[in-house]
C-alpha cells in the first residue's frame, strides 16, 4: 500500500524536514502509481511519518506494503480514537511512538509545501473541487465529458529545480543519481488526483480530447519574485515579447533553468526552497465549450441589405446584414459568446440572391447548449425565416469544422448564374443583343475593379463567361442571364469599369451599357447536403 521503500527513506526524511508535502515527496521518489497520490492527504502524512519515525527496524514490511491494503486503511482511521485499537492491529507496539506521530502531524498538517505551494494539498481537497464544480454548473453548459487544464505560477519551476538539486545532492552521497525528467511532474500528479474527483462531482468522465474545458489559473504573489534572479543571471533567456505581460514566462524560465550552472543557482536561491506563508490562489476558474458549426443556404431578397455589417469610419451605413439576421437566432439558441460567419462567395449590398441560395457556415464560439435534434434545427430555421422577409434560410444543419472546407473547395472552378437588368445609351433592337446568345465560353480579362481596388491587390484576372441569354425589354433595356466562372465581377463585365474589363457588354454591343439590377440565380456548390422539408 505505502508507496515508498527503504531506499527512499533518506530523501523522504530530508524533504519532509525541509517543509515538503507527502505528495511532492512521492514525486521526488519517482512514485509512478497514480492511486498512491489519491489517498486523503491526512492519511498520506500519517503514513509518511509512520514510515520515517518508527518501525525503522521493520524495513521488510514497508517493502511489501501492497500485500495488505484494507488492513492498513482501518488502522489509520482508528488511530485517533485510542491506542488500544492500534495494539490490536499488531502493527504498532508502542503507544508513545504514536503520540510522537500525532505531534509531528499537527506541526506539518497546516504547513504550506515549499515545492508545490499548496497545489497538492488544499487544491486536491473536495472543498476546492466543489467550488470549481459549482462554478461549472452555474454556467449551465451542456457537456458529456471534460478536460481539465491548469496554469501554475511559473516560479514553481524554480522551486522544483531547487528541490531537485537538494535531492540530487543527497542521492549523490549514496552513489545514486536522479535525472530531472524522472521526477513525476507536478501537473501530471495534480491531474491524477483531481480528475476522479471532478468526474464524480460533474457526473461525466475526464477525457483529454473533450471539447469542454475547465481551466484554473493559479497564482502565488508571495513568491512571484522567486524567478527574478534568473533574468540577471541569464538575461538572454528573457527577451520582452509584445503580447506577453511579463518576461517570466514558463518557457523562458525552463530555458534559463536548463542553462544556469548549479553553483550560480545555489548562490541566488535557497536549496531547499523557503517555506511560504500562504497557499496559491485560484485566480480564475473558467469553462469553455468547443465551437459548434452550423451550415445552410440563404436567399437575400433585399437590395438594401449587406451580407456583413457595413461600417465606414466607425459609422453604420445600414442597420442590418444577412449574417446578423441569421446569427442572432443561433447565438440565442446555442447561448454562444460570439460567432464567425463565412460563405461561398458574397454578393454586393444591392444584389439579391435567389434560387436555392448561397451556402454559408457559422462558427458558434463557446456555446453553452450543444445538443440539437434535427427537429429542433428545423424549428430554429423556421424562427429565422419568420423573423425577416429580407432573407430566407434552408438546409440548416450541424456540421463539423472539417466539412466547412467543402464550401471553399474549388470555389474558383464553380459556376454561378446571374440575371442582370441592363441599360444602353443608344436604342437597341432584338437583333442587336441576339449576338450575345451565340457567344460561348467567352474569355474576359478583368483588372481588379476600382470599387474594390483600395482593399485588394491590383491584378488582371482571366475569367470565362460560359453562356449568355438575352431577353429584350424595350429600346434601352434588356435582361441578360449569364452563367460564369465564380469570381467574375458581373457589374464590371457589363459597364466595363473605365475599359478595365475587356471585352465588356458595352464593347460587344458598340455602345455604352450600364447595369441597373443584378440577381444571383444560383451558386453551384453542393454543400451543405440538401435536407428534405
Amino acid at each position, binding site marked *: 500500500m505505502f508507496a515508498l521503500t527503504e531506499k527512499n527513506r533518506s530523501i523522504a526524511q530530508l524533504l519532509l524536514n525541509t517543509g515538503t508535502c507527502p505528495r511532492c515527496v512521492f514525486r521526488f521518489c519517482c512514485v509512478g502509481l497514480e492511486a498512491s497520490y489519491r489517498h486523503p492527504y491526512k492519511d498520506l502524512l500519517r503514513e509518511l511519518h509512520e514510515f520515517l519515525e518508527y518501525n525503522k527496524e521493520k524495513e521488510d514490511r514497508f517493502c511489501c506494503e501492497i500485500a495488505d491494503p484494507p488492513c492498513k486503511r482501518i488502522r489509520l482511521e482508528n488511530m485517533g480514537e485510542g491506542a488500544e485499537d492500534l495494539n490490536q492491529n499488531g502493527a504498532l507496539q508502542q503507544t508513545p511512538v504514536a503520540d510522537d506521530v500525532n505531534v509531528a502531524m499537527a506541526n506539518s498538517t497546516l504547513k504550506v509545501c515549499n515545492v508545490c505551494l499548496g497545489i497538492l494539498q488544499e487544491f486536491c481537497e473536495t472543498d476546492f473541487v466543489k467550488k470549481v464544480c459549482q462554478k461549472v454548473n452555474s454556467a449551465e453548459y451542456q457537456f458529456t465529458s471534460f478536460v481539465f487544464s491548469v496554469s501554475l505560477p511559473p516560479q514553481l519551476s524554480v522551486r522544483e529545480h531547487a528541490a531537485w538539486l537538494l535531492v540530487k545532492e543527497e542521492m549523490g552521497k549514496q552513489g545514486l543519481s536522479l535525472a530531472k525528467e524522472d521526477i513525476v511532474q507536478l501537473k501530471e500528479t495534480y491531474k491524477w488526483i483531481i480528475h476522479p474527483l471532478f468526474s464524480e462531482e460533474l457526473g461525466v468522465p475526464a477525457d483529454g480530447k473533450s471539447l469542454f474545458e475547465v481551466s484554473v489559473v493559479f497564482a502565488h504573489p508571495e513568491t512571484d519574485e522567486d524567478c527574478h534572479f534568473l533574468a540577471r543571471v541569464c538575461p538572454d533567456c528573457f527577451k520582452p515579447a509584445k503580447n506577453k505581460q511579463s518576461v517570466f514566462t514558463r518557457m523562458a524560465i525552463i530555458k534559463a533553468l536548463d542553462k544556469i550552472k548549479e553553483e550560480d543557482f545555489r548562490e541566488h536561491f535557497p536549496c531547499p526552497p523557503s517555506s511560504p506563508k500562504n497557499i496559491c490562489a485560484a485566480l480564475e476558474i473558467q469553462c469553455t465549450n468547443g465551437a459548434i458549426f452550423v451550415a445552410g443556404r440563404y436567399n437575400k431578397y433585399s437590395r438594401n441589405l449587406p451580407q456583413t455589417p457595413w461600417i465606414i469610419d466607425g459609422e453604420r451605413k445600414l442597420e442590418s446584414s444577412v449574417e446578423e439576421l441569421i446569427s442572432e437566432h443561433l447565438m440565442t439558441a446555442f447561448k454562444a459568446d460570439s460567432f464567425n460567419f463565412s460563405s461561398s462567395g458574397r454578393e454586393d449590398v444591392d444584389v439579391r440572391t435567389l434560387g436555392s441560395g448561397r451556402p454559408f457556415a457559422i462558427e458558434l464560439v463557446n456555446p453553452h447548449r450543444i445538443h440539437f435534434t434535427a427537429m429542433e434545427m428545423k424549428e430554429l430555421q423556421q424562427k429565422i425565416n419568420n423573423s425577416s422577409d429580407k432573407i430566407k434560410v434552408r438546409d440548416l444543419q450541424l456540421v463539423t469544422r472539417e466539412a466547412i472546407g467543402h464550401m471553399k473547395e474549388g470555389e474558383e472552378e464553380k459556376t454561378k448564374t446571374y440575371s442582370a437588368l441592363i441599360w444602353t445609351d443608344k436604342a437597341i433592337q432584338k437583333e442587336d443583343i441576339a449576338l450575345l446568345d451565340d457567344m460561348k465560353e467567352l474569355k474576359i480579362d478583368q483588372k481588379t475593379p*476600382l470599387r474594390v481596388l*483600395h*482593399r485588394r491587390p491590383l491584378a488582371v484576372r482571366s475569367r470565362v463567361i460560359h453562356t449568355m441569354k438575352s431577353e429584350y425589354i424595350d429600346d434601352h433595356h434588356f435582361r441578360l442571364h449569364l452563367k460564369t466562372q465564380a469570381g467574375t465581377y458581373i457589374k464590371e463585365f457589363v459597364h466595363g*469599369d*473605365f*475599359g478595365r474589363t475587356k471585352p465588356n457588354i458595352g464593347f460587344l454591343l458598340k455602345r*455604352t451599357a450600364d447595369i441597373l439590377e443584378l440577381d444571383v440565380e444560383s451558386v453551384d456548390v453542393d454543400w451543405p447536403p440538401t435536407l428534405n422539408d
Partner: protein
Amino acid sequence: MAAAVTPGVTERYFTRWYKPDVKGNLCEDHCILQHSNRICVITLAEAHPLLQNGKTIKSINYQISANCSRLQNKVSGKSKRGAQFLTELAPLCRISCSDGEEYTIYSCIRGRLMEVNENILDNPAILQEKPSTEGYIAVVLPKFEESKTITQGLLTPKEYEEVLLKRFNSTS
C-alpha cells in the same frame, strides 16, 4: 462644345472635382473622379484644348523624364507596395498634337500611382471620345488620412461651371 455627359456608373459612384488652368496654362482643365472608397481617376475636363474640335493627338508619352516612366509603376499586394508617389504637380504624361502643341497632364492630387491607362497609347482617339470613362489618364490612391483633404483646393461642378461662364464672357 463639351462631350455629352454620360449618366450611369461615373455619376453613381464618383464625385467630380475640377482644377482649371492647371499650372497656369489657360483652359488646361483637369477633372478628378473620386470614388466613395477614396480612389481617384485623373481625367481631362471637357474644356481642355485636347478635347476641342479639330485637335488630333499624335502621341502620348508616359516617360516624364529621362529616368522616370509612369509605365514602370508596379504595385503589389493589398498595401500596393512599390507605387510611385505623386504630389499635386507631378506630371503623369505628355500629349503631343499634330498641330505641334504639347500638353502635360498632372496628377492634381497627392497619392500613390496605381496605374496609368495604357489603352490610350494604342488608341488615342478614345481619350477624346470618352474622356471621363475609357479615356482616363491614371488611377491614384490618396493616403487614407488625406482622402478628404486632397480635394479641398479643387472646384465642385457648380464652381467649375462659373469658371467656364466667366471664361466664355471674357473671350466674347
